[in-house]
């Protein structure tokens, strides 16, 4: 049996609409600000470029990526490919799309279920909530899901996952708090294989990327998964709070080093969240964005599609 990791690729009809309402604030922050900057401007001068720079940096896109985008604009102006301010918005849109698309990659194919998904991230980024939503999504697609409560550290993390499990109709494999997370993972993956489940989603304790020993613990977990099912974990999702600034780059870098992150989930993108950091991450680390979280409800986790994302940002 061959399945792609995230099941059917068909898009919900309302995806664009929901994405649009989800990124409303980001759009207001980035694109509207761009439009304001461009308003009434005919020529591309230093002042305009300054304003563009501020707008991009304010969206957490980062100094380096911003510089690169501006450099391209300058070049275009020099080569007279771009004569007036009107074309600027299009050029920026094009560049953002290019960056995001360059890192797009299809999820790994899973030869034999279960697909093991490890969810990692710093404290409070939204891992457990994302897992709850993800489980619901898979269940809605008619898949069987087993949740693994490997956050044995934080108070009440297991209980929180169990409530999500009940909502989604997914069983939770747990051990008492304080247990070795790798042991819980081992149990869960074995159980899922024995029961022929489609997915195991593993919740891990939040950890700052600078904590060597905790990062080593993650490494051990990936090794454990591979021992039960060669090739597992098939997907390692790094959950990133959309309000994260430039530290997001370091998070992505370190988590990739130790646990082989294969994709990003951008959580809490509703609100005035910026999320521009994913552009920097896509550019510097070439990691694809898999999902965006745009609300508190289970259905508020949307699959990421660079083109639709940019479209929802730039078109009202």
């Amino acid at each position, binding site marked *: 049996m061959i399945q792609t990791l995230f099941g059917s690729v068909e898009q919900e009809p309302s995806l664009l609409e929901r994405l649009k309402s989800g990124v409303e*604030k980001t759009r207001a922050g980035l694109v509207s600000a761009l439009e304001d900057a461009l308003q009434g401007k005919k020529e591309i001068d230093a002042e305009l470029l300054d304003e563009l720079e*501020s707008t991009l*940096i*304010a*969206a*957490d896109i*980062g*100094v380096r990526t911003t510089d690169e985008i501006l450099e391209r604009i300058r070049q275009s102006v020099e080569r007279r490919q771009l004569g007036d301010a009107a074309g600027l918005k299009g050029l920026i849109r094009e560049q953002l799309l290019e960056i995001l698309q360059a890192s797009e990659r299809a999820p790994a194919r899973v030869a034999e279920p279960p697909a093991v998904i490890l969810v990692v991230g*710093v*404290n*409070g*980024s*939204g891992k457990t909530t994302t897992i*709850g939503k993800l489980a619901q999504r898979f269940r809605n697609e008619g898949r069987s899901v087993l949740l693994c409560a490997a956050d044995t*550290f*934080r*108070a*009440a*993390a297991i*209980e*929180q996952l*169990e*409530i*999500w499990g009940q909502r989604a109709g997914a069983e939770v494999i747990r051990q008492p708090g304080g247990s070795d997370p790798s042991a819980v993972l081992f149990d869960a993956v074995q159980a899922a294989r024995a029961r022929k489940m489609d997915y195991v989603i593993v919740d891990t304790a939040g950890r*700052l*990327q*600078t*904590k*060597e020993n905790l990062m080593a613990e993650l490494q051990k977990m990936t090794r454990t998964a591979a021992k039960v099912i060669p090739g597992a974990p098939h997907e390692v999702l790094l959950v990133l*709070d959309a*309000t*994260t*600034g*430039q*530290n*997001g*780059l*370091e*998070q992505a*870098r370190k988590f990739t080093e130790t646990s082989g992150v294969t994709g990003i989930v951008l959580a*809490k993108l*509703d*609100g*005035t*969240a*910026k999320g*521009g*950091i994913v552009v920097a991450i896509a550019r510097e680390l070439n990691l694809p964005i898999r999902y965006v979280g745009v609300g*508190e409800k289970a259905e508020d986790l949307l699959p990421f599609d660079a083109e639709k994302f940019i479209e929802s940002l730039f078109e009202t």
Partner: protein
Amino acid sequence: MFDNLSEKLQRVFKSLRGEGKLSAENMEGALREIRMALLEADVNFKVVKQLIENIKVKAMGEEVLTALSPAQQVIKIVHEELIKILGSHESKLRFANEPPSVFLIVGLQGSGKTTSAGKLARWLSRNGHRPMLVSVDVYRPAAREQLKVIAREVGQTLYEGAPEETQPLELARSARRESANTGRDVLLVDTAGRLHIDDQLMTELQQLKEQLNPVEILFVADAMTGQDAVKSADEFHKRLGITGVILTKMDGDARGGAALSIRHVTGQPLKFIGVGEKFDALEPFHPDRAASRILGMGDMLSFIEKAEEAIDKKKAVEMQRKLIENDFTLEDFRDQMRQIRKLGPLESLLGMMPKVGILKDLKDVKVDEKEINRVVAIIDSMTPRERDNHMIVNGSRRRRIAKGSGTSVQEVNQLLKQYAQAKKMMKSFSGGFMGRKLGKMKLPAGFPFGDLPGR
């Protein structure tokens, strides 16, 4: 990732030798680097703009001093400007005249409210208060359960609420009554995380404020927050009038520029920072140290303070004497290792060090506390005579020591070699590691872990 700002500035100013004054022209490159450093630390760009203006004005026309390099001079100015925003001294908590003082803990989802509430309760009880905790987060699954577990762990009282109390207001009111009745002087109210644009939930907070009349409304913010930090803080402040900020997750490598931005837009002081997962990892906020960190210059002061706390003064004096007399035995070496271990997690210590000069290479050193334990174990397995004079440790003694300490002969060899090196080196600097001259200390890269196996 972050090169030290002063290092970059040194490069920028290389060309400045021979010029008498800082001017708009020769400052241009430096200002660009400073701007970059501030933006990469997630200081809000509007704040950065203003800062750069101020710095320009201040630096212009300053004479290039001989004592300080232009880079140092500029950094001094930047540092001063940062402190101006952050406030120059520690801000203390306020308490009501009539107990209980109610502290409302608010913030975005995942910023660390519940953990901070637990840490704060512990901190308060350590400082002579009798706090009570209550969670009014009726939304997030298992949120109240989480606070209950934390309260148990930190040994503090929690108001659990009756089963029929399902509304935040009810819960908070009963908790206050309960704390008044049981002689608790502070009530910590842990609220649900919310987005500042969520009108309904923000109204709920306003109601809580009206009903409870809190003396402190503490806004909990994540140190890793980017440019958006100002918006949420500003909105919370407008709706509630926050009285202070707790900046969490400062134990990572976030440079915490959000601190600057939040302080700038709300005018409210940072009161605490969260520096670890354990419940004692909450510290009063020191503006000067945060300023150094935002600039990527480490937190030398905290390091020195911590070192002074952990290191036994009398032993230090004794050590100094021994160093001078070249009487530094393996026993002393072990003592030193133990003292280093007492300093706490070494990574967090290294994070405090400025990444300059010789210490620059330290950032790549992965310090494993187990290595220290191993060193101590090896020395423990020696006889007093061997510790006194390492020259007598021959092959068969090495084998015995390795066996006794559960290590290998190679590891024992390496330790002895390392000790010999350390001894030689210690002789070469007066004052020594244990003295107060930490600022002048010169260690080879990786000391004392450079040559240990298992890295």
